[in-house]
């Protein structure tokens, strides 16, 4: 709502700069979007009087004007506007002036003729084309005759008036009007503005109720009133009214329509004017019938829905109720008899209609947020009085009332004790009463508190909490003390799960992976990659884009997007992890997915920079496996971590992917991203893992106890064996650990070799075995026996050749 500072000053004694007033409003009532004075940035624009005019010899549309600008000699100005004429008072941009858009005007020659300045149209001095009256839309603006020549133009166009643009929150519909704003400022500055009731001079010979009839369902329109003015003469409004409207961002149309818009601004009550002679029979408020159409004032034909509320006469809809009038009954230059509608329409229906037709008008905005039921009659009364004053005619006696609503004013009981209890203040009952006095809420002392009666213009207030807010804001949030809560104590600790989640992040960061956060909403294709369990997709009903239309069922695809982004920006080395949720559905019918915590990571390129002393090799499967394995050890999940080759993931390299299980529970996988997928994402050779974090959280953890370190020396034995290529390390380890005896503490694979001296289809693998007895010094013979047994078993079970 664009509020005119000058208009406010008609009611209130305000002397501060507009910026300070705006700040006060922002601190006490609603947000302020901007404070603007239209003349700011303009220079040397004055009223000129066109003394004479000749046609430009070299042009068929330019005129050469002699313009009195209040100086000794008139200025010669070339003007191309079609409506320029002798004896007009016009906007003159003097030489070296500045007009709209920060354009400087200099003395110049136009087709050989000297031009000392420019005669301006409104949009050339900064007016939005949307608010320029049609009359002046295609030419220069012409002042009223009484405007003094040579004076700066600003005050004659309202451009000196600071306009405060309020961003009114949905609860403060009352602030969408000058009177509402005046009431609030009166409370803030503790003033008592005088707001006059309109006086209507009715013509006793005309009876509104004889001229027009109306009926309304009060579920659609709680209040529906019409007044009639006959014999008006449609003309442009006087300039003061035009100024009020264009400063509020509304285009002046004619003296009747402009009055309705003026009343809308003043009261917050949208009015609509119909040409009485275009209406057939009784007016009704009803829902549109199926298939009905209405051409609205913007000359657009609209298909109506049965959810649209309309105003109709006996034959046709004549307005989209509360949103926009109909073209068929609009006021035109020939209109003589007008019907003015003042109503309260159902806010929800208005909102839906405004949304459906994408028609968010000044009127609909106000109906949506509520209307002051006390202002409906005043608004229409003042409107018809103004119309009579500006357009002539007679006001028919009486108001046609199809429905009417006078709410019972709520009385709310509050105490100082409870107010202070909520706000942390120490206000007395008198101080609180004083705040309500300032707000214009009547209050009476009752027992230990106050009975506060809320005026109809503040329909947002209906319970005690609402009143605490009124007290707090008028008292001033700056005056509130700042304390920390006292009272019952509590302990703040992370839960074991939260600790584990935090530890898991720190662990992966320590292992070189940086935390990423990618999007949970992705494409249908990416959502179902790397599926660790069967799941149906969760789709959005109305996605903004296909790129973010389905909930992810894996974390890896998001990380691959990240790798792609980095690669596209010439970053080859990427090591990222992400923790977050994936969304699984067990059936297509299931609506709400299960949310499961996952953790995933990717590495590609080099983990560290190649330097003079750091001869890096690009990452590979085993680099990632080292990271994942250390991560799992850090989490302390009880049981052995096992890796088994898998080709179950179509998005993973079938020969370089392993399932990971702990104590028999599958917790995820790691491996190389399938080259085909890598190509699709436009990324280089990349390795990734994804783990079910929830599973890791739920699995039992190692006990909090320790094993004493053996005081006795260990004995090492190395063994080198040649086995078939298909024999896996884990098979060999299994034999060794199962058959290694009680003292085999550790087995370490230290060499793998294929090539010279190893037969085709075979590989040589060398292990270092460590034996320890925690209770006494091991004897060589004991170790030898155990070692021999392993050799025998390897030969027997795996057909190994011992070297």
């Amino acid at each position, binding site marked *: 709502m664009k509020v005119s500072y000058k208009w406010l000053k008609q009611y209130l004694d305000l002397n501060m700069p507009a910026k300070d007033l705006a700040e006060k409003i922002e601190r006490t009532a609603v947000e302020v979007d901007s404070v603007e004075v239209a003349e700011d940035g303009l220079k040397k624009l004055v009223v000129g009087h066109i003394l004479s005019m000749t046609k430009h010899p070299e042009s068929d549309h330019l005129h050469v004007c002699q313009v009195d600008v209040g100086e000794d000699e008139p200025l010669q100005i070339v003007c191309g506007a079609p409506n320029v004429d002798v004896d007009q008072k016009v906007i003159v941009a003097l030489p070296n002036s500045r007009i709209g858009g920060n354009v400087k005007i200099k003395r110049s020659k136009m087709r050989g003729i000297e031009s000392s300045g420019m005669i301006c149209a409104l949009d050339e001095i900064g007016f939005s084309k949307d608010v320029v009256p049609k009359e002046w839309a295609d030419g220069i603006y012409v002042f009223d005759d009484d405007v003094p020549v040579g004076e700066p133009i600003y005050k004659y166009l309202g451009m000196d008036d600071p306009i405060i643009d309020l961003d009114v929150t949905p609860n403060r519909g009352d602030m969408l009007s000058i009177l509402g704003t005046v009431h609030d400022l009166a409370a803030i500055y503790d003033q008592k503005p005088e707001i006059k009731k309109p006086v209507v001079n009715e013509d006793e010979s005309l009876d509104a109720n004889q001229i027009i009839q109306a009926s309304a369902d009060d579920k659609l329109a709680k209040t529906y009133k019409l007044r009639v003015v006959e014999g008006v003469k449609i003309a442009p409004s006087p300039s003061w009214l035009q100024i009020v409207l264009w400063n509020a961002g509304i285009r002046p149309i004619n003296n009747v329509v402009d009055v309705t818009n003026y009343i809308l601004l003043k009261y917050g009550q949208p009015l609509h004017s119909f040409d009485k002679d275009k209406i057939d029979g009784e007016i009704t408020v009803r829902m549109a019938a199926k298939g009905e159409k209405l051409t609205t004032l913007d000359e657009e034909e609209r298909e109506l829905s049965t959810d649209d509320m309309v105003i109709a006469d006996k034959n046709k809809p004549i307005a989209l109720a509360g949103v926009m009038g109909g073209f068929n009954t609009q006021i035109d230059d020939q209109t003589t008899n007008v019907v003015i509608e003042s109503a309260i329409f159902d806010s929800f229906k208005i909102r839906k209609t405004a949304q459906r037709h994408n028609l968010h008008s000044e009127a609909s905005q106000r109906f949506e947020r509520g209307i002051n039921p006390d202002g409906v009659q005043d608004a229409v009364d003042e409107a018809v009085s103004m119309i009579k004053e500006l357009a002539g005619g007679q006001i028919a006696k009486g108001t046609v009332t199809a429905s009417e609503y006078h709410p019972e004013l709520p009385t709310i009981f509050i105490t100082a004790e409870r107010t202070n209890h909520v706000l942390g203040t120490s206000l007395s009952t008198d101080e609180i009463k004083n705040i309500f006095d300032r707000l214009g809420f009547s209050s009476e002392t009752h027992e230990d508190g106050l009975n506060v009666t809320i005026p109809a213009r503040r329909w947002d207030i209906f319970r005690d909490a609402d009143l605490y807010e009124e007290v707090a804001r008028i008292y001033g949030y*700056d005056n509130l003390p700042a304390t*920390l809560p006292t009272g019952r104590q509590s*302990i703040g600790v992370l839960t074991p799960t939260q600790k584990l989640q935090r530890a898991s992040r720190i662990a992966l960061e*320590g292992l070189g992976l940086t935390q*990423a956060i990618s999007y949970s909403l992705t494409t249908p294709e990416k959502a179902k990659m790397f599926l660790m369990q069967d799941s149906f997709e969760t789709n959005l009903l109305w996605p903004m884009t296909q790129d973010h239309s389905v909930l992810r069922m894996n974390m890896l695809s998001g990380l691959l997007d990240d790798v792609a982004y980095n690669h596209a920006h010439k970053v080859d080395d990427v090591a990222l992890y992400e923790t977050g949720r994936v969304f699984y559905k067990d059936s297509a019918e299931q609506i709400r997915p299960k949310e499961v915590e996952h953790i995933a990571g990717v590495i590609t390129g080099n983990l560290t920079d190649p330097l003079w002393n750091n001869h890096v090799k690009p990452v590979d499967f085993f680099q990632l496996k080292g990271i994942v394995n250390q991560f799992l050890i850090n989490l302390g999940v009880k049981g052995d971590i096992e890796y088994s080759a898998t080709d179950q993931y179509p998005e993973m390299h079938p020969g370089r992917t392993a399932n990971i299980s702990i104590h028999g529970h599958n917790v995820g996988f790691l491996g190389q991203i399938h080259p085909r997928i890598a190509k699709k994402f436009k990324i280089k050779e990349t390795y990734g893992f994804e783990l079910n974090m929830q599973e890791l959280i739920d699995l039992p953890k190692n006990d909090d106890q320790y094993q004493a370190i053996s005081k006795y020396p260990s004995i090492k034995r190395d063994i080198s064996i040649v086995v078939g290529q298909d024999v896996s390390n884990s098979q060999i380890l299994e034999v060794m650990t199962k058959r290694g005896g009680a003292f085999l503490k550790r087995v370490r694979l230290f060499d793998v070799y294929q090539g010279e001296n190893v037969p085709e289809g075979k590989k040589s693998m060398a292990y270092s075995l460590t034996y320890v007895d925690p209770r006494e010094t091991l004897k060589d013979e004991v170790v030898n026996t155990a070692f021999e047994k392993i050799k025998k078993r390897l030969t027997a079970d795996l057909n190994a050749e011992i070297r």
Partner: protein
Amino acid sequence: MSLRDQLTEIKEKGLADIEQTSDLKTLNDIRVHLLGKKGPITAALRGIKELTPEERPEVGSYANKIRDAITEAVADHREKLENQALNAQLTSEKIDVTMPGKPVTQGQPHVIQQIIDQIVDLFLGMGYEVLSGPEVEEDKYNFEMMNLPKNHPARDMQDTFYISKEILMRTQTSPMQARALEKHDFSKGPLKMISPGIVYRRDTDDPTHSHQFHQVEGLFIDEHVTMADLKGTLITMAQNIFGDKFDIRLRPSYFPFTEPSVEVDVTCFNCMGKGCDVCKHTGWIEVLGAGMVHPNVLDMAGVDSKKYGGFAFGVGPDRFAMLKYGVDDIRDFYLDDVRFLNQFSKRGN
């Protein structure tokens, strides 16, 4: 020459030889030679038989002194030679310490995670618990129980991703208020919780909008929690996250689930309150919304609003991070450019 004089001569010559030796092997040879069974001292002492029994002990003890002196001289000289050798080695081992160290890998927490952790740690210290809730939420919790019935105009303020008529991507972390209120047993103590998480809005991504971002919800309900307590808590948070010099101010606002509702501004980062383009010359920047929990919210969750009340606030870590570090495009947080992410190294703050 007396035996004593002979021994003296051996000693002096021996000590001179030791002093002149420049390598450990020669030094050892000298020691073995001088003190050995075939050495000059042993040879000289053969003449002890010719002395009187009275003279013998004196010469014998003199000979031992000489042995000791030589042993000591050898040891001293050895240490000297060893030091020389070590120093020579150290000199030869000199390196250019300005060359780079061998790289090790270290990842970083995401900058938004850092802000969240900072908030979480602060509120843990003040006795709050940390809760997390579903990202796919019921309309009931996201809106209805937050005092936003169907058809409430404020629903238009938030564009929502729906999955069905009743199921949606949560648009705020506020539903955690309702969930926490429903579960909490007030006989056990106050409800003090914060809940960080991801929220979603049906927005087109641009420098200031993202269809996915983060929020941290805060809630404190007990028998006597005041708006002044809210103000004090928010000042504590602002100063903890941004620095001691930062102040806050409250402005009236509107949220259906709080009454009174306030918008909270913090001192402008750019000008520290003097006024600049960033803060539209107000010296303040809007950072979060807060208020006293609406009695309807308490009642709907089965908490007696006559007995209990308190405050709630909602913080945007994305916005905090943008302000704190001057990031001007929210999308940077979700593209995961490693050059971007690694700038925010954790400083234990």
